[in-house]
Structure formats: structure tokens, C-alpha cells
């Protein structure tokens, strides 16, 4: 490599490194704003903004979904397996909404600690499988829990 080419390559390397460092600092500074949602633990701990809307994400607690009489308002608990937050939402839920499913709700905390959502989004996980495989996995899982229960007795 001729000296002039070496110099050019070095300058390019320097430029890319400089931009990378600057971007890292910028992203670190805006880290909180880049978080798409807060977890129930953070909300319970009072880290979420009060008085203006934010997003909360977690799993819908099994057997917690209750429909009100008007047929549209739904109340359920959102958990991250540490803390729970009660969510209230009026509107149409997305296809993937079900108990045990990850969701993200946009809305505001009421004074009594209930989160009133104006929008509910379903968060999909990265697993793809045919229905037969899913049911086989579930059967095996339940079997495993049953066996574990037996061995404990």
C-alpha cells in the first residue's frame, strides 16, 4: 500500500470511529427517551412520569381479564412477574391480545393507581411454529409440572 493510500484509509477510519463515539454518547444521553415502554415494576416504584401519558409493557396476568357490562371496557392486570398494574381500556383489542401474552398499553396513571389506556398494542415474540407443535409443547410442559408436583408430595 502506498503511503498516500495508507493516509486516506487512516483518515476514513478516524472519521468512522469519531462518528461512532459521538453516536454512542448521544444514544446514551437519550437512553430513557428511546425506551418504548416502562415495566410494571418501574411504574409501581414511581419512576414513570406522572400527569402525562406514557407506555407500559408486560404480560397480561392469567385469569385477570374482566369485561364490563358495556361490552367494550376491559380491565386486566399487567405483570412483569415482580409487580402488577391494573389496566383499564375501552376499545377494540388487537388479534394477539390474550392472557399470558405480552402487550404494550399507552395511557395515563389515575390517582388510585389504575392505568387508563387509550391504546393497546400486542407485542409478538420471536417464536414461530405450527399449531400442532405448540400444543405438543404445552402438553409436555403441563406433564412436566404435574410430575414435579408428584415428586414434591
Amino acid at each position, binding site marked *: 500500500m502506498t503511503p498516500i493510500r495508507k493516509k486516506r484509509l487512516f483518515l476514513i477510519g478516524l472519521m468512522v470511529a469519531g462518528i461512532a463515539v459521538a453516536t454512542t454518547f448521544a444514544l446514551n444521553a437519550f*437512553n430513557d427517551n428511546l425506551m418504548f*415502554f416502562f415495566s410494571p415494576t418501574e411504574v409501581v416504584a414511581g419512576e414513570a412520569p406522572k400527569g402525562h401519558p406514557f407506555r407500559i409493557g408486560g404480560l397480561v396476568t392469567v385469569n385477570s381479564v374482566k369485561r364490563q357490562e358495556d361490552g367494550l371496557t376491559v380491565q386486566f392486570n399487567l405483570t412483569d412477574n415482580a409487580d402488577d398494574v391494573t389496566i383499564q381500556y375501552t376499545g377494540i383489542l388487537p388479534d*394477539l391480545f390474550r392472557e399470558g401474552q405480552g402487550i404494550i398499553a399507552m395511557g395515563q396513571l389515575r390517582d388510585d393507581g389504575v392505568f387508563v389506556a387509550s391504546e393497546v398494542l400486542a407485542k*409478538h415474540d*420471536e417464536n*414461530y411454529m405450527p*399449531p400442532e*407443535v*405448540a400444543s405438543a409443547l404445552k402438553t409436555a410442559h403441563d406433564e412436566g409440572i404435574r410430575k414435579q408436583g408428584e415428586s414434591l408430595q
Partner: protein
Amino acid sequence: MIVRFFHQMASPQYFYRISGRLVPWFMVPCALLMLAGLYGGLILAPPDYQQGDSYRIIFIHVPSAWMSLFIYVVMAAAGVIGLVWRIKLAEVVAISSAPIGASFTFLALLTGSLWGKPMWGAWWVWDARLTSELILLFLYLGVISLYGAIEDKRVAGRAVAILALVGVVNIPIIHYSVEWWNTLHQGATIAKFDKPSIHMSMLVPLLLMALSFKLFYAAVVLMRARCEVLERERNSRWVQSLVEPQT
């Protein structure tokens, strides 16, 4: 030997001759793989346990998103070669890649949006993955318009290479966005080797489609580069002799 090969490839005239012969060798396997991938993905693969048939957009969405990143890296690498070694052909490859990359980025955003409405409940959200991919589209568009705005194509090639290099910092951000921040977009399905997150019957057509998209890019970038070479070398004797009737 290898050095001689590269020197030959870098000569526009030689490149023009060889690439013309190469294009069908990429196009035909591309078409075959795409047919196989679409048949496997749309007909053979079973529906997903949660999403039903809607997940089938994965066979276009994921390969497009991969290509949008891959082409950007190729463009930036070609840009560096053009800047350091002043090889004209590298500049040609870089600028020929930009519209293809922009198309794949647009396709990834569009298919993702179509899937997002029924599955997430929103066409668009400003989460880290979606936003950084949108920035990638703007980078591609910036490269294309910067190249178009400068009259002298040698200068334009260098300017474009610098812009592409500035944007290269966005590539790891897109890739790791789903790990670094809480996003609505799900994590990577394929890029982990501990356990497969996707069933074999869906993985195989997905990989076929990905390979087919790669070959498509290879064929189209060669075709675009041939046009660009002809235009840049229009005053040289070998191009003149191509256009003029043989006597």
C-alpha cells in the same frame, strides 16, 4: 494472480464484457429459488400457532430487511475502496447499489406496516427498530439525491462514499435496537444459534427466499453497474465501437 484478476476486473471494459455474461447465471437461480421459496412458504408451510396465516409476510419482510442492511454494508465498503484506491468501478458499484437498497428498505417498512396493523394494532410506532430502519431509508435517498446533484461524477462518487460511511454507524444500531432498548418489534428469530425459534418447515422457505433475494441483488447491481459504466465511459473508444455499426 489474484491481484492481476482484480486489476482486470477493475478495468471498465473488461467488467462490461464479463458482467454481461454473469447476469443470467444469477437471474435464473434467483427465479428458481424464489419459486421454491414462495411455494414452500405460502403453500407447504403450516399456519402459525398464534398468528395464523398472517405470519406469512415474514417470507418477504425478513429477507427484505436483511438485504436493506447487507446492501448498505456493500455500498459503504465499495465506497471505502473507491476513496482509498481510487478504483472507478468501486464507485460505480456503490452508487448502483443505492436504489436497490432503498427499494428493499421500503419493502421491509411497507410489509412490516401491513403486518403490524392486525397483529400489533398499529400501522406504525416510533420504537427504536422502526425508527432506525426509517433513517436507513433516508440515508439511501440522501445518497441517491447527492449523487444526482453533483455534475462531475468522479466528485459525486467520492461525496456519496463519505455520506455512506457516515451512515454506516446506523447499521449496528438497527441490528441491536431490539436488544438495547424496549421495543414493540420482536427480537431476532434466526440470528441466534442456541435454539431455533422458528419451525423447520417455516425456516427452510425463509432461507430460500433470503438466498433468492441475494442473487436478485447480484444480478440487478451488475445490470445497473453496466449502464453506469457505459455512461461514464461514453467518450472512450471501446464504448464508441459498441454503439457504432460494425464495418
